[in-house]
C-alpha cells in the first residue's frame, strides 16, 4: 500500500482521512463512554445513513448530485442529535428511550429513501461497511474542517466538559451551563460520526468511538492519559485496519474493528497479568 500511496491520489486521501478520524472519534468517544452515552453513537450513525440515502435519492430523482452524501449525512446527523436532546428532556426518567426512537427512525427513513432510489448499490454498501476508495477530495476537505473545528471546541471547553462528565450535579451547582455545553457536545458527536462513516461505515462507526476508549480505560491513571491512549489505540486500529483491508480486499470497517478488539483484548490480559504478578509478589 505504501508504494501505491504515492501513486494514487485517492489512496492518499483515504489514508489522511483515516488519520484524522483516528484522532477525533476516540477523542469524543472518551467523553461519550464516561457519560454512559455509548449507544447514542449508534443511533446517530443510523440517522446519518438516512441522510446519505436521502442524498442518493435526490441524485437519482434529479439525475445530478444535489446533495453530496457526506453533506446529507451531516445534515441528518446534526438534526438527529438535537432531536435526541429534545427527547431526553421529554422522557426525563427514561432518557435512554431517545436512543431506540432515533435509531429506528433513522433505519426507517433509510429504507424508504433506499427503496425510492431504486435499491441497494455498491455506493451504499461502501457507506455501510466503510471503504478505502470512496473518499473524494470534497470529503477529505470537509473532514479536515470538521477535525479542526472539533479540536478547537474540545480544547476551549475541555475543563467544562471534564467537570460535567465527572460530576454533573457539582458542575451545575458551581454555575456551569450544563445544558448548553451538553448540546454543543452532542452536535460535535454528530459531526464526527458523519465524518467517520466514509472510512468505517454506518454499522461500525460507534466501535471506533468506544473500543479504543474501553482499552485505554483499563490502564490509564487519569482522564487526559486515557484520552491520549485512546487516540493512540484509535490510530493504530485505523492504520493497521486500512492497510490490511486494502491488501486483503476487505472493507476497512471490518479490519479496523477487529484490530481495535485485538488491542482491547491485549489491554485486558495485560491488566490481568499485572494483577496476578502483584498478587504473587505480595
Amino acid at each position, binding site marked *: 500500500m505504501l508504494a501505491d500511496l504515492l501513486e494514487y491520489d485517492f489512496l492518499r486521501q483515504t489514508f489522511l482521512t483515516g488519520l484524522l478520524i483516528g484522532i477525533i472519534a476516540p477523542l469524543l468517544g472518551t467523553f461519550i463512554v*464516561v457519560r454512559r452515552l455509548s449507544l447514542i453513537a449508534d443511533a446517530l450513525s443510523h440517522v446519518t445513513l438516512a441522510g446519505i440515502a436521502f442524498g442518493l435519492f435526490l441524485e437519482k430523482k434529479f439525475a445530478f448530485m444535489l446533495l453530496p452524501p457526506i453533506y446529507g449525512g451531516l445534515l441528518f446527523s446534526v438534526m438527529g442529535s438535537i432531536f435526541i436532546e429534545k427527547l431526553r428532556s421529554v422522557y426525563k426518567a427514561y432518557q435512554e428511550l431517545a436512543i431506540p426512537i432515533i435509531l429506528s427512525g433513522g433505519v426507517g427513513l433509510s429504507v424508504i429513501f433506499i427503496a425510492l432510489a431504486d435499491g441497494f448499490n455498491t455506493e451504499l454498501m461502501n457507506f455501510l461497511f466503510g471503504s478505502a476508495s470512496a473518499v473524494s477530495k470534497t470529503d477529505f476537505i470537509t473532514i479536515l474542517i470538521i477535525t479542526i473545528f472539533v479540536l478547537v471546541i474540545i480544547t*476551549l*471547553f475541555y*475543563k*467544562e466538559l*471534564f*467537570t460535567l*462528565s*465527572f*460530576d*454533573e*450535579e*457539582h*458542575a*451545575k*451547582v*458551581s*454555575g*456551569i451551563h450544563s445544558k448548553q455545553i451538553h448540546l454543543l457536545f452532542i452536535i460535535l458527536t454528530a459531526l464526527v460520526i458523519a465524518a467517520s462513516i466514509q472510512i468505517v461505515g454506518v454499522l461500525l462507526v460507534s466501535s471506533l468511538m468506544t473500543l479504543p476508549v474501553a482499552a485505554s*480505560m483499563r490502564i*490509564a*491513571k*487519569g*482522564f*487526559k*492519559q*486515557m484520552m491520549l491512549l485512546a487516540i493512540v489505540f484509535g490510530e493504530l486500529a485505523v492504520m493497521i485496519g486500512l492497510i490490511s483491508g486494502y491488501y486483503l480486499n476487505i472493507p476497512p470497517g471490518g479490519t479496523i474493528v477487529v484490530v481495535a478488539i485485538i488491542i482491547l483484548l491485549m489491554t485486558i490480559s495485560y491488566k490481568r497479568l499485572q494483577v496476578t504478578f502483584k498478587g504473587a509478589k505480595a
Partner: protein
Amino acid sequence: MNSIISLENISYSYEKKPILQQINFEIHKGAFVGLLGPNGGGKTTLIKIILGILNPDSGSLTLFDQPLEEFKSWNKIGFVSQKSNSFNKGFPASVYEVVSSGLTSKVGYFKFFNQEHKEKILYAINAVGMSDYTYENIGNLSGGQQQRVFIARALVSEPELLILDEPTVGIDYENVQRFYELLHDLNKQNGISLLLVTHDTGTMTKYATKIACLNKTLHFHGNPKEFENLSEKEMSKLYGHDVNIVSHNH
C-alpha cells in the same frame, strides 16, 4: 455580625406533602453549624434550597447579603455531597484532575488553567493530606481518602462557606475522627464557615459552634451545650415525629 446565610419563613412541599415548614435559620461568618435530624426530616432539601437547586414555595433566602435571585458568586460556596450519589467509582480521573474541576467555573469560559491555578490545586490537595496520591486514579482510593479529595475540590476555589451533606457515610470510625479534625482546622485556621449535615450527634457536639435540629420544622437552634442538656422528652419530640410516620399499622 456578618450573616452568610439567612433563611426567613422558608416552606417547601413535594407533591403537596410538606417537607419544610416556616424555617428561620441563620449562619454567621466563622460558624461551624451542625444540622441534625431524622431521615426524611428535610435536611438535604434544605441544602438544595440554599444551593439554588430547588425553589422554595414561600419565604426568602439571602446569601452573603444578597437575595438568592441576585446572587451570582457561587464560588464563595463549596459543596461536598454524599459521594455515592454523584460519583461513579470506575471513572478514570486522577486526584489532581478531580480537584482541578473545582476551579472550572471560577477560571471561567475560554480560559485555561495557568501556573497560579496549578499551585492552588496542589495546595488544596496538600491541605487535605493527599499529596502522596496526587496523580493516582481516584477509583483506587479508600472511601475516606476519596472524601478528602472531594473536600479539596470544594476548597480549591477558596470558598468562604463549605456545605457538607453527610460526608462521613460509609467511612470507618477512625477516619471519621480524622475528617472532623480536618474540618475543625479549616474552620479555625482558614476561617471557613461550615454547614455540616450529619447523623453523628456525639462528634458534632464536640466540634460545632451551633447545632440545628430539623424535622420538617426547626426544633432546636442553639449552641452544643444547650443541645446536650435537652431533656429526653424534648429529644423524643425531635425524633418522635419520624417514628410515628414509619410505625403506622397496615
